């Protein structure tokens, strides 16, 4: 019998795609900001080109969307009524065991752990947590890098320069100087992209090898489990 298992709420799915879109946009624009090698304005004379200005603007806009997605995710992480991720993460023996089993399964293709459970399996959950932690790092270091650009004079809400100042103080306290902050922002960007690649690959892999429709989880919110011997209802 094929059973539909609900895995992601609407809000979760929207935030997922918002996150994906903004990570890609931030990464591409960030690469330009780091080493502006393409999009060079033509001609040498006076012009009204604003390439770097616009790229930075796009980077900041998607950074803000990313922050919104992150904060909503953070809220749902603890308080989602359907499936708070925090539950898949409790470092209890059983959860850890499941993660190890899943990892072993990826490399042996044997002993597939049960996946009918509506909760996210712990290994995936650890991955999501890591990506979101890095997004948090980008948020704080990004705010720190933005601090000199925004003052009381050009911010709509006065609390904004205060937030940026706190982010700068915190990241400089941890990393030592704004130069290191920028290098960490740069490296974390690549780390996020590398993890995102692995994440996408794993979902495709699961879809292909488990044939449970994993990819549709993030579109429709459901996956499909075939129960040969009906398992206990969860």
């Amino acid at each position: 019998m094929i059973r539909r298992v609900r895995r992601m709420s609407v809000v979760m799915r929207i935030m997922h795609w918002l996150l994906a879109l903004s990570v890609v946009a931030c990464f591409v624009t960030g690469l330009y900001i780091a080493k502006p090698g393409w999009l060079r304005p033509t001609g040498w004379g006076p012009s009204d080109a604003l390439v770097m200005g616009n790229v930075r603007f796009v980077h900041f806009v998607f950074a803000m969307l990313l922050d919104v997605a992150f904060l909503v995710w953070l809220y749902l992480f603890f308080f989602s009524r359907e499936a708070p991720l925090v539950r898949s993460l409790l470092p209890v023996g059983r959860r850890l065991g499941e993660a190890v089993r899943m990892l072993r399964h990826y490399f042996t293709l044997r002993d597939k752990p049960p996946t009918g459970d509506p909760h996210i399996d712990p290994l995936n959950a650890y991955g999501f947590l890591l990506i979101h932690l890095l997004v948090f790092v980008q948020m704080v270091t990004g705010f720190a890098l933005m601090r000199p650009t925004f003052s009381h004079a050009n911010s709509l809400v006065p609390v904004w320069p205060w937030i940026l100042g706190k982010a700068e103080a915190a990241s400089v306290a941890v990393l030592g100087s704004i130069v290191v902050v920028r290098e960490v922002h740069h490296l974390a960007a690549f780390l996020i992209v590398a993890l995102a690649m692995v994440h996408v690959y794993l979902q495709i892999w699961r879809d292909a090898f488990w044939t449970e429709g994993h990819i549709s989880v993030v579109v429709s919110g459901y996956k499909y489990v075939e129960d040969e011997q009906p398992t206990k209802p969860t």
Partner: protein
Amino acid sequence: MPKRPPLRAPRSQRTAPPLDRVERRLDRLDRRFGASGLPLDELLARNGVSRREFLKWSSFMTAALCLPPAFERAVARAAALAPRVPVVWLHLQECTGCTESALRSAYPGIAELILEYLSFDYHETIMAPAGHAAEKSLEDTLSKHRGEYLCVMEGSIPTAMDGKYLRLGPAGETGLSLARRVAADAKAVIAIGHCASWGGPQSAAPNPTGARPVHEALGIRTIRIPGCPYNSVSLVGTILNFLLVGDLPALADGRPAWAYAKRIHDTCPRRAHFDAGEFVEQWGDEGAKRGFCLYKMGCKGPYTWNNCNEMGWNEAASFPIRAGHGCIGCSENAFWDQMAPLEKPLADGGVDIPFVRGVEGTVDAVGWALVGGAAAGIAAHAAYSGLVKGTRGSGENREE
């Protein structure tokens, strides 16, 4: 429209000190030091500076110090007093470049003149006495002006081996001990240049002499005026501020906020080219001739706070970025370690590869290696799973 609060100075600077208190303070200083040293009028006249030029300069300094125009007269008075306040200037672990840059200008401005004629009761480079006589004039100043003299320290202090890497004077006293002695009774200690403020190149890794900035080596509060060299306007402004209010100026990262609160990148004359995306790609190319932004040539203006843009150097004639070379970040902590390579953007800067000691890659290379590694891992796993599935048949993987 939302109401925007006005651009605000740091809280401690938001209100100017009361003018009458400042005037009373200057009266007192006049009575105390008025008779010593050279009168400024005479000094300026001798160097061909007119009264009018001096007044223009006073209003420039008033604005630079973020004081209202009513303070111009007080600033002029303080400037006249400045050459009379006793100053002890110590040369520690340094190259004397800071002293040279202030004293050797071909056409010294008023700031340089004031510095040149500060009542240097002890300054190894320019004082007449030498050897034991110099030592005596130091001891005299320390006892005669106890608690009143300003101490300027140029250079870092080597702390390894109990400071034995630096021996000064006829008695071979260590820099550490001399600095400690002079700082103890100073009205204030001003750390001049990158070395005294942040440690300088000699404190770059691996730092064999244990060179430390003054505030760390002595464990005291200093006013830091970093730069390699520092800008004489910043020192004179700090001294004027001292004469006016008798206290430290508002500080940003230990540096006078009035001079170091703005980022080079935000006040840069090439900034419009940065925003436009117009960059110098190579020394001497068409962009360089047209004054494009030096970001890709390694300009560190985005990470550097200083007043070079506004104050300029050599009578405000120019400064590195205007002259065509990127900022090297010389007013920032650990610039030697962190801003290098000076002519490459940060993305091409070196980072230690995590977990592999002694190997450096560029920030970008490490990033792409991460992504490449992930791609290779994915490809390997995909090939492996395909293979296993092929040999085992498709039914097996659905076992639970």
